[in-house]
C-alpha cells in the first residue's frame, strides 16, 4: 500500500497542493488530468526525485518521504521508454539486478519468463536504438518488472505510440496487471485508457486533486463541471432546480429523486441521450428535436440536436443511423433516464 498524505511540493513555476492518495496492493491506479496538472510530478515525488516540502509518503506502512530513490523499490516506465542506449536489451533488463541480492539462476529464470511473456525473447542482443516504439516499451516494462517492484509507475505509457501499437501495449499492461498482480500507478490524459485499464482514478487540475475514487463511480458521478467535462459529459446545461425538476434554457428536465441544490449545472453523456425506439419506454425524459449536424466516427455517429433551443450532443450507433436514414434536418424523438442526469452545484470549477 502506498499512501500519500497531505503532500506539498513547490517548484519555481508550479506546485502540488495537499495531495492525499491511497493506492492499495494490486490496484491499477490512474492519475489523470490535462497537460500541466502535475500528474507526472506526483510520480516523481513517489519515486523520490523531487523534494517534498510538506506531507509524507509511506509504502506498506514505512515512511519513505526522505528515502533516496534507490531504496524505495518502486519501478518506473516513462513515456519515452528511457532505455540505456549504450546497453543491449539483455543488459538493460538485468541492470537493476546487480543492486539487489538475487540468486543468479532465479534472475535467469525470471528473465526468461518475462521476455517470453512480453514477446521480446528474440531481441535480447539488440541495442535499444534498433527497436520499434512498442518493443522499447516492452523492454522498459521487463527492466522494471524483473525487480518485482512494490508498485510500477507508468508515466503516459501509451502517448508516444501509434494507435495500433497503443492497443497492443494497452492489452499487455492489462495482462501484466491481471497475471502478475503488480500494483500499477499510471499517469494518463485519456479517460478511455483509464476506463480500459484502471480500477481507481484521481483527477488532477492545477496541482490539486479534484476528485478520486473507483473509476466507475467517478465516471458516473463527477463532482464538478471540470470532472464532468473530463469524463465525457459533453452536455453541460445551466439550470434552476425545484424538487426534482430542472428548468434549462430550453425544455424542463426530470431529475432523479433526491436533494438537489436550487441552481447549478446538469451534465449528460452524449451516449445516454438515446433515440426513441420501439420497446424502450422507461425514459423519464422524452423530448423532440432536430438534427443540426452529424459526424461519422467509424463505429458510431456524433449527432448534434436542437431541442427547443437547447443544443444537445448524442452518440448513436452506426447501424441505427443508417437504418433510419438520419441526416441533418431530420426530426427525431429522444429520451434519457432521470438517473443519467448528473446535477453539479453552481460553484464547482
Amino acid at each position, binding site marked *: 500500500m502506498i499512501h500519500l498524505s497531505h503532500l506539498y511540493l513547490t517548484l519555481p513555476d508550479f506546485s502540488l497542493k495537499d495531495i492525499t492518495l491511497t493506492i492499495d496492493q494490486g490496484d491499477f491506479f490512474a492519475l489523470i488530468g490535462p497537460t500541466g496538472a502535475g500528474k507526472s510530478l506526483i510520480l516523481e515525488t513517489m*519515486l523520490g526525485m523531487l523534494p517534498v516540502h510538506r506531507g509524507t509518503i509511506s509504502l506498506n506502512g514505512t515512511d519513505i518521504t526522505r528515502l533516496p530513490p534507490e531504496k524505495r523499490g518502486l519501478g518506473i516506465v516513462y513515456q519515452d521508454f528511457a532505455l*540505456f542506449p549504450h546497453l543491449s536489451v539483455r543488459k538493460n533488463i538485468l*541492470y537493476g539486478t546487480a543492486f539487489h541480492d538475487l540468486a543468479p539462476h532465479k534472475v535467469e529464470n525470471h528473465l526468461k519468463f518475462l521476455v517470453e511473456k512480453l514477446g521480446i525473447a528474440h531481441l535480447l542482443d539488440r541495442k535499444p536504438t534498433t527497436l520499434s516504439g512498442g518493443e522499447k516499451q516492452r523492454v522498459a516494462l521487463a527492466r522494471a518488472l524483473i525487480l518485482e517492484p512494490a508498485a510500477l509507475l507508468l508515466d503516459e505509457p501509451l502517448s508516444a505510440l501509434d494507435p495500433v501499437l497503443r492497443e497492443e501495449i494497452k492489452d499487455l499492461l492489462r495482462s501484466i496487471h491481471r497475471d502478475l498482480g503488480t500494483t500499477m500507478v499510471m499517469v494518463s490524459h485519456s479517460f478511455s485508457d483509464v476506463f480500459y485499464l484502471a480500477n481507481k482514478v484521481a483527477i488532477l487540475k492545477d496541482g490539486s486533486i479534484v476528485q478520486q475514487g473507483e473509476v466507475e463511480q467517478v465516471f458516473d458521478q463527477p463532482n464538478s463541471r471540470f470532472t464532468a467535462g473530463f469524463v465525457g459529459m459533453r452536455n453541460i446545461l445551466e439550470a434552476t432546480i425545484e424538487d426534482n425538476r430542472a428548468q434549462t434554457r430550453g425544455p424542463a428536465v426530470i431529475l432523479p429523486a433526491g436533494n438537489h441544490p436550487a441552481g447549478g449545472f446538469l451534465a449528460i453523456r452524449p451516449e445516454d441521450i438515446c433515440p426513441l425506439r420501439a420497446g424502450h419506454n422507461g425514459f423519464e425524459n422524452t423530448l423532440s428535436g432536430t438534427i443540426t449536424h452529424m459526424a461519422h466516427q467509424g463505429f458510431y455517429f456524433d449527432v448534434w440536436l436542437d431541442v427547443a433551443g437547447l443544443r444537445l450532443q448524442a452518440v448513436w450507433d452506426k447501424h441505427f443511423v443508417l437504418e433510419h436514414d438520419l441526416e441533418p434536418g431530420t426530426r427525431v424523438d429522444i429520451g434519457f433516464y432521470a438517473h443519467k442526469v448528473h446535477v453539479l452545484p453552481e460553484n464547482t470549477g
Partner: protein
Amino acid sequence: MTVKPGVFSWILILFSLPLIGLIVLPLSKMVLTPTWAALWESLNDPVVLEAIGRSMTTSLAAALICFVFGTPLAYLMARRDFPGKSLVEAIIDLPIMIPHPVIGIAILSLAGRNHPLGRMLADMGIQVMGTLTGIIVVLTFVGMPFYINTAKAGFEAIPKRLENVSRSLGAPMGATFFRVTFPLAWQSMVLGMIMCTARAISEFGAVVIVAYHPMTAPVLIYERFTAYGLRYSQPVSVWLIGVSLILFVAMRLVSR
C-alpha cells in the same frame, strides 16, 4: 535538383567569407612558407623537439587535471540547482577574460615564498616558478572553462530520466554516474579534453611569465621569432600545429 537558393543565401555566403579568409589566409601562408629543408632541419633540432613534446605533455596533463576535477564540477553544474550557481558559472568563465599576463602574475604571486600558500608549497618541495608544475598550473587555468563547459553540455544532453530510471532500479547516485552517465557523456568529455588541450597548447602570455625556461613551444616560437626572425620560428609553428591536429584526431578516434 533543389529548391532554388535565394539571393539571401548568396549574401550570407559572401558575408561569411572575410572571417574564413582571416583564419585561412595567414595560417596557410604560415604553413606553406617553410621549405622542406627548413622543416627537416628543425626536426633535427633537439630544442624544438623538446619544446613541442613539453607543450604536448603539459597541455595533456592540464586536460587530465580538468578531467579529474572538472568532471564533478561540470556534472554539478549540469544537474544541480543551488543558490549562487550563476556566480559559479561566471567564475568558471573568468579565465577566458583575464589578460594572459595577469594570469601568470597572479599565479606567481601566490606561489612565491612571500605568500603562505607559496611557503606551504615550498615546504612540500613543490616549485611553480620555472617548472613543469608551474606550466601545468597555468595551462589548467586557461583550459578549464573549455573542458567544463563542453562536458557540462554533454551531461545536459543526457536525459535526466535515464538517471532516474537507474536509481529507481536500485543504483545509488555513484553507481548511476559510473554506469549510465559516464559512458553516455564520454564523447563530450573527450571533446572537452581536446578543447582544453587546444587552448592550453596555444597559451603564451601567461606561461612566459611563470616559466621562460623550460620552454614550451609557443615560448620557443616567440623567442625564435624575436631573436632570429620569421624564418626560424615558422617551422616550429608548423610542427606544433601539425602534431596538435594529429593528437586531436587521434583523441576523437579513440573516443568512438
